[in-house]
């Protein structure tokens, strides 16, 4: 049964490693049964946040409050209610697929029979029934990834943390994972995921938290993030004549102009821009060959939020402070 209270509430979370502030005053809460995406560049603090939620790393300050099925508040998510797919993943390569799935299920609180039944059902779902008795080392990387995801979700957790659930999957299996995560939500599981595949996150996530240098830089649904952008629509134009970017910049509702080279330019428009008025004005200039209109996607919002593409990041070594 899904509680109506937020299952997880994080307030003022801080964590530093040596000289790096990995997480800095982070607060958020998850609604029951939602898919919540944690996004950010490498070194933004996503993994440290996840590790604090699972109890692997203790926060320097702040509180984590998880409302357990037992009605108690916990400072970490209890093992039996948590499904965890870590970023640093691995399986026992020398063991058979079924045996280790049963082991993982038992460690998460299932009895042996239930764990085996759930493992077999899951293997059937991902098309690996005939590989159940084979050693994991014989599986392809994609199939190992399926087993890994299965190991995390085998016990039907109330709360799932999936760090990069799509990595290692081809497009077909990415769709399979997408459906799987949606089914989790439908079954009442609250999902916190971290991923770099922006189009997939955009299709999946109910809400998004963008992190940078351990701080919250954007938060809300994809629609909210989009409406919060100064320029949330992009008009790509191809002219049959020379472009004057100064003239383009002066058009109503245009926030910025990006000359794409030759006779092409992209206009970034504010939310209030009147497209009809703009097109009327454009019609007075050089002859238009092509017009494409699109809303700003999550990828663009992400890049803007973190200040564009970056070089190497200073990453935090995950050791307790003071070491």
């Amino acid at each position, binding site marked *: 049964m899904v509680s109506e209270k937020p299952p997880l509430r994080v307030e003022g979370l801080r964590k530093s490693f040596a000289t790096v502030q990995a997480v800095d005053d982070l607060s958020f809460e998850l609604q029951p049964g939602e898919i919540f995406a944690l996004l950010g560049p490498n070194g933004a603090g996503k993994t440290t946040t996840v*590790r604090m939620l*699972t*109890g*692997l*790393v203790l926060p320097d300050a702040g509180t984590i409050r998880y409302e357990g099925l037992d009605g108690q508040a916990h400072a970490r998510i209890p*093992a039996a209610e*948590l499904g*965890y*797919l*870590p970023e*640093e*993943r*691995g*399986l*026992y*390569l*020398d*063991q058979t697929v079924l045996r280790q799935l049963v*082991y*993982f299920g*038992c*460690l*998460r609180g299932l009895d042996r029979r239930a764990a085996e039944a759930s493992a077999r059902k899951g293997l059937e779902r991902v098309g690996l029934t005939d590989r159940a008795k084979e050693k994991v080392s014989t599986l392809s990387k994609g199939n190992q990834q399926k087993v890994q995801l299965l*190991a*995390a979700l085998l016990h039907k957790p109330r709360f799932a943390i999936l760090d990069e659930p799509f990595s290692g999957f081809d497009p077909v299996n990415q769709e399979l994972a997408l459906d799987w995560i949606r089914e989790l939500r439908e079954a009442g599981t609250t999902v916190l995921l971290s991923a770099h595949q922006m189009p997939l996150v955009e299709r999946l996530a109910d809400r998004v938290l963008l992190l940078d240098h351990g701080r919250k830089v954007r938060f809300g649904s994809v629609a909210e993030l989009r409406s919060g952008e100064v320029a949330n629509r992009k008009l790509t134009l191809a002219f049959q004549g020379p472009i004057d970017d100064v003239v383009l910049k002066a058009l109503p509702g245009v926030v910025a102009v990006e000359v794409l080279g030759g006779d092409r330019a992209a206009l970034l428009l504010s939310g209030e821009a009147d497209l009809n008025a703009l097109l009327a004005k454009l019609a007075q200039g050089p002859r238009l060959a092509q017009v494409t209109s699109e809303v700003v996607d999550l990828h663009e919002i992400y890049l803007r939020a973190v200040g564009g593409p970056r070089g190497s990041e200073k990453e935090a*070594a*995950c*050791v*307790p402070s*003071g*070491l």
Partner: protein
Amino acid sequence: MRALWLVTVWEFRRYFKWKQELMGLLAGILVGGLFMGGSALVTRTKARQRAVVGVVDPVGLGLQSAKGITFEAVTDSIAAEARVGKGTLAGLLTVESSDSVRLLVAKDPPWQKELEQALAKARLAWKLRERGLSPAEFEGLVKPPTLNVVRHAEGRPAVGQARMIAGISILAIQLMAVMGCFALFFTNITGEKQARVTEQLVTAIPAQTWMDGKILAFSLHGLKSVVTLVFWGLLAALGALRFAGSPILADLGALSPFAWIGALSFIVLGLLFWSAFYAGLAATIDDPNHSARSSVMLLPIMPVVFSMMLLKLPDALLSRVLSWFPITSMGMMPLRVVQGSAGPWEALGSALLLLGSFLVLRRLAGRVFSTSMLLYGQEPSWGNIWRMLRAR
């Protein structure tokens, strides 16, 4: 407890393969059988192989036949020398005096040692004859006085050869048990760190449970090595039939149940102690092939070496101290117990201290593991480890 049981069974079964164990046992029996059969064949061949040595003995030394050698009196030494060259005589012995004998051979004589013994015996008999003494009179002259050792009524029983053998066996078993599981800690813990398996596991169970499960599972593997060793030891002893009719078996049987239980307890406790040590150390190692810490893994050999050195000095102050000190007590206390140097209460106290040390060590191993498991591709420094040990 359920999680501990799950981890222990999982880890034990990962490395315990019935089929391979059985095959190993059968192969061992087969190799042992072949070895014994081969030895018997060699012994028989040696017994049948006799060297014929010609003897020119003008002195009258009177050589008797020796093991593997038949002496043949020679009158024509030139013809005999020719036979040596052709190989029909293994050698030609010419007694020049009672103190000097010349041996002519065509190749290195493998029976030289036996010949020397026969010569020494013949020379002694010759010298005795020369002095008019019979062999019995000579034996009476060189026989040492009979020493009757009388045990004091309040003293402890004599330490027979069997007890010494028991003591050495206990040390060997301990070493075998510890070494039987040390490779597992290395390959398993560092392997799992490299395979990144641990992170998901320790969100399901406490890191300490994971560590305890490994300590128990690999200690069981160590004990399995002991059972195998004892099996082979007994088989070898019975196979050789060396102890049949010897007082050694009776002497071993006379050891009190306390001594046997005590020895077994120290084997188990010592194994657990070193397992916890190995587990903690392995958790700090990233790559066992390139870590300087690998050499520390040989530390458990130390108590066995000390105990061997003090084998015959169970009452020395150093022996008594080492039998209480947890790192060395696993080897020293059982030695003192089987030799009657330590009583039940002393053994019990030392065992409790060893148990307490194990419990502390396993806790420290858990602390080290819970932090260092997240250090991928790097090893914590000794300073970092010290801070992990002190962390709460």
